[in-house]
């Protein structure tokens, strides 16, 4: 009996972000009523956080490996624009090839981070700060205007449809959840993050693991660029502006530890949904954009508090675990 109560409490803690999202959603809806309960609204809410959700996954994987990726938002903009420019110059490229373009560019960008951090053992904070600026400036060098003026293939914009976007996103999420939990690579990524010295003594190659981590993070960022482009129907320079810190906040609220080795991609997505609910709520109440930036700051700090409390409670529960 006691064991059952304990495993329920642990379940609640692991999925805290989902419960918080539900709580905020119901409170907003209760105040605002009607429209917020409709299926369209829920779809819209989730659809709008899908691209950010991919960035959260990219950041989560980097954090789990004990690293940090500051470049994801800038990289997403760079990938979207460079793909857009290539597609504008080559109108003949069919849609099914076009969708692979941002993914490939994303992987390449990720490999750049991965090579510097993995085999060369450079500090991830400084490396990704550097690549952040490279991608940011590069975006403006590639495109003379804010928006790439071209007609993008229909297939390229598939993420504009809420159903298609959400279903494909859930498939990607499931793929990464399984990859992280059920493959040796995924486990080794966790081990490299949770105890790099021990992991490397036990034969796990840290350089290779970090390289692969950032390549995957780049892949997800490339996907985010594709989904952002679909969502706004065009490749714009500003499409992922300011999404680095929400991505970090989403991961942290979702229970991903900044010191590595702890957390899960599916819970990180719960953190993203929570952010989406709060954002939707704020816009429903017509909060000014300045106040919204402040509220994001409050959320980031709130995420740390939530994480701390969750870890403490979890420790207490596990320490006196019935044996």
């Amino acid at each position: 009996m006691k064991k059952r109560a304990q495993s329920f409490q642990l379940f609640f803690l692991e999925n805290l972000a989902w419960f918080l999202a539900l709580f905020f959603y119901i409170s907003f809806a209760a105040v605002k009523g009607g429209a917020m309960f409709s299926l369209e609204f829920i779809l819209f809410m989730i659809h709008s956080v899908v691209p950010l959700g991919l960035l959260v996954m990219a950041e989560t994987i980097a954090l789990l490996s004990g690293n940090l990726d500051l470049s994801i938002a800038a990289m997403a903009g760079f990938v979207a624009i460079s793909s857009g420019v290539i597609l504008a110059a080559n109108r003949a490229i069919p849609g099914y090839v076009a969708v692979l373009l941002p993914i490939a560019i994303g992987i390449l960008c990720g490999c750049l981070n991965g090579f510097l951090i993995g085999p060369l053992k450079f500090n991830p904070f400084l490396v990704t700060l550097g690549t952040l600026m490279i991608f940011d400036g590069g975006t403006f060098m590639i495109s003379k205007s804010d928006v790439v003026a071209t007609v993008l293939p229909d297939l390229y914009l598939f993420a504009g449809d809420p159903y298609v976007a959400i279903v494909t996103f859930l498939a990607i999420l499931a793929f990464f959840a399984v990859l992280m939990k059920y493959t040796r690579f995924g486990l080794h990524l966790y081990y490299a993050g949770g105890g790099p010295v021990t992991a490397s003594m036990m034969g796990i190659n840290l350089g290779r693991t970090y390289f692969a981590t950032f390549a995957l993070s780049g892949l997800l960022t490339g996907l985010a660029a594709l989904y952002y482009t679909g969502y706004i129907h065009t490749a714009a320079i500003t499409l992922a502006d300011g999404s680095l810190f929400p991505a970090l906040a989403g991961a942290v609220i979702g229970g991903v530890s900044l010191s590595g080795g702890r957390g899960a991609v599916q819970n990180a997505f719960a953190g993203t949904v929570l952010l989406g609910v709060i954002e939707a709520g704020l816009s429903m109440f017509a909060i000014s954009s300045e106040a919204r930036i402040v509220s994001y700051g409050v959320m980031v700090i709130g995420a740390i508090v939530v994480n701390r409390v969750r870890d403490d409670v979890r420790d207490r529960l596990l320490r006196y675990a019935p044996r």
Partner: protein
Amino acid sequence: MSASSDRGETPLVEMRNLHKFYERVHALNDVNFKIYPGEAVGLIGENGAGKSTLIKILAGVIRNDKGEIFWKGERVEIPSVDVSRRLGIETVFQEATLIDIFNVGQNIFLGREPTKRLGPIRHVDYRRMNETSAVLLKELRLRVTPDREVRFCSGGERQGIAVSRAMHFKANLVILDEPTRGLSIMGVEQIWKFARKLKEEKIACIFITHQFHDVYPVADRFVMLARGIKVLDKEKKDLSIQDLEAEMLRAYEKAEQLASKSGQR
């Protein structure tokens, strides 16, 4: 030194004329060391005597400057931890052997997870990991479950987890680095239990310690280093605990003399 352990069989490991220098410090000075299959050796000496250096060479963490290493009679090089592990040497360093935030089962199989095929995909076999871990833990009479996070385990239990790893992967030699440091009397007794279990499994064992009282009951032989020189190598049957204390004092004086003669600081 006394050729105490000439058993007429091939040693599991033999290190001949080993030298290691750290800048001007002669950390190992012409050390000969061997251990036979299933034998338990207490490697004793003060801090800085060279015992860590010796086992780090065996574990593949550092390399010797001079000398030869033989594994089951064959000349080998141990350039990395990986090579050492592949030979069947399991080194249990105090801090770095387990990762705190993962559970016992994960730690036992760390880096060597069993997999299962599902169509074309190989996935980690958690069930086998947990079941095997539970059996191993039971054999060592440890009252922890495979799903318990290592950070909640006691010092003795942590050593036990590392020992069960060695047992499962059929190590030939286990090196325990200061296994009794910071342990209660009960913890020390637990270590003895592990040592007897390893003996049953014919796994050789080196205990590195400066608390020779803690390993006296389970060691077959004692090797002592002082200032990088091997000053004692004797079977326990020729050595009472009082003898050992006396020998230690004598050995230190000798090492001091030797060191000053060869111009060491």
